[in-house]
């Protein structure tokens, strides 16, 4: 859309290329593992959350979803209870979990658009609420004993070397998401609302409904993430999503989404996800510990914002 944004994606691509070269120099295993695509396997879930987070932020009005990790945890527990303790067919349980995810999004979105409360605080409240509910429902313990046959397809198989959850969940989610955002009325409405909600209201957009649906979509994606996790690891944990919220925001912002809304693309988020995956994988191969990876991500985030605030004219600080 704007030159700065195009830059952002070019910058990300360049960074990815540099990181790939650097990583393959640092570690001889980086390239010859043969399946670079499987890099994304670990990022599939966080990718889904970042996708939802991007949409919520794009919708403007201070939109942000801090509860997205807790939503994943709660959905994970719900799924476990339904599939294991309730003895439901896992596919049916998955379907019901999606419904629960959507309802949780409705709680967030309803409070935010209905009562016009600041998203940061509402989702901070539900961050505590949902994760605690997950703990209470599961008694804090993880739930396992899933029916292995069939259901583990999502998390445990791969097609032509590409993990199923990447090929059939993550990539389709982004492709559909990008299509919706760029080619449909809904997507266009989201950008309108994020760009100038007053103007959007005057061209006939139901601002509240659009924003509400963004929170519902984000939570539903978190529910998908919960199902993928459950199928992949064959257990459901009340802490499955702890800490993911900040990572998801980081990736969305790194991908070029302005925290004030209206600017950003899913392709940017995807590239940011890719960059993070390459960095994490490469650093792990090089024997650099996980905590250092977190720090590097923080540094990349700040530097990318610095580049951004220079290229843009006086962005208001929140």
């Amino acid at each position, binding site marked *: 859309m704007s030159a700065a944004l195009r830059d952002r994606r070019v910058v990300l691509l360049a960074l990815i290329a540099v990181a790939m070269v650097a990583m393959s120099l640092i570690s001889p295993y980086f390239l010859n593992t043969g399946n670079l695509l499987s890099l994304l396997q670990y990022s599939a879930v966080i990718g889904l959350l970042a996708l939802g987070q991007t949409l919520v932020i794009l919708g403007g009005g201070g939109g942000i979803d801090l509860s997205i990790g807790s939503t994943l945890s709660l959905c994970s527990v719900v799924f476990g209870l339904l599939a294991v303790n309730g003895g439901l067919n896992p596919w049916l349980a998955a379907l019901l979990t999606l419904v629960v995810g959507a309802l949780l999004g409705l709680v967030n979105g309803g409070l935010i658009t209905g009562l016009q409360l600041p998203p940061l605080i509402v989702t901070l409240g539900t961050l505590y609420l949902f994760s605690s509910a997950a703990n209470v429902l599961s008694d804090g313990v993880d739930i396992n004993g899933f029916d292995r046959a069939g259901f583990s397809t999502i998390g445990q198989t791969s097609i032509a070397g590409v993990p199923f959850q990447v090929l059939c969940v993550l990539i389709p989610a982004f492709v559909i998401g990008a299509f919706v955002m760029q080619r449909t009325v809904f997507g266009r409405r989201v950008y309108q609302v994020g760009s100038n909600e007053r103007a959007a209201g005057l061209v006939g957009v139901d601002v509240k409904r659009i924003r509400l649906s963004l929170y519902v979509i984000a939570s539903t994606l978190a529910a998908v993430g919960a199902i993928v996790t459950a199928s992949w*690891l064959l257990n459901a944990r009340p802490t499955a999503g702890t800490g993911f919220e900040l990572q998801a925001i980081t990736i969305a912002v790194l991908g070029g989404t302005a925290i004030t809304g209206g600017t950003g693309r899913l392709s940017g988020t995807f590239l940011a996800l890719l960059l993070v995956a390459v960095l994490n994988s490469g650093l792990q191969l090089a024997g650099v510990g996980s905590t250092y990876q977190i720090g590097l991500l923080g540094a990349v985030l700040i530097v990318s914002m610095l580049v951004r605030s220079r290229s843009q004219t006086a962005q208001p600080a929140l």
Partner: protein
Amino acid sequence: SGCSETQSSTTGESAAANDGGTRVAFVSQVEGIPYFNGFDAGAQRAAEEFGVEYEQAGPATVDATEQVRILDNLVSQGFDAIAISPLDPTSINSSITRAQDDGVQIATSDADAPDSDRSVFVSQASDEQLGATVMDQLADATGGTGQYGIISGSADSATFNAWIDAAEAQAAAEYPDMELVGGIRYTTDTAQALEEAQNLMTAYPDLAGIIAVPSTAVPGVGQAVTTADKIGTVAVTGFGSPQTAAPFLESGAMTSTVLWNVEDLGYLTVWALAQLVEGNEFAAENEVPGLDEPVTYDEATGILLLGEPSVFTAENYADYDF
């Protein structure tokens, strides 16, 4: 854990590793606790002894998904054998199966994944023995009667839950006059453990003892008893490494801490991994060069047992550097 000081050596050596040396690795539960440093120290000693290369890594926070990522990553780096201390007993299973299929020997160590395809579980001591020992320690200090509390780590840690079950079983069997109060308190960090301990002491003024389960809770509980001026009134024991418990063993705030020799566990794990790479079978009783006691192996469960739990007290903690 893959920290800075090992980093340079491992990256330097990994190039040489392509020349055919045996390379083994261990995935800890989390980076950043002294316990796994002790493990690392023992493991490095064994690596030198047996001429293999050793590397250790772990997630930044207690996160099972991250463990899977690290294990898969190590597999793709072409390690010959890898041990892991799984955070939960199931999520790692499919990765273990895949690794075994790729010809990488996988052992569990420190914690088990019983339903997985792991080749062996290197056990520090059985959960039953650990739980029973800690209960014995507590009962010893309190004279076998009174109220006690348990402060655990995150609720979904299988290892902690197994120890707690064993401790409660031991209490039921041996110490009928000991009463668990306040339920099991789950905590995430030292500060929270401290608060929980204080609150327990407030809610139950006659509290006779506290068991601090995770190593993060140990200093918190020790500190709480110290600040509450209840040294000698409330007995504290738990599963902390001796260095973590040191100040409190010294001051008497903790009567003892129950663990095993983690360095030996690291040592034994590397030895076991080396055996797996060589293709050697374990005997029912194994002489391990460098360990004083022989190590037993249970063919049926595939468990290699280091031995009895160790009890660390003010007298002996200084001998251990973890």
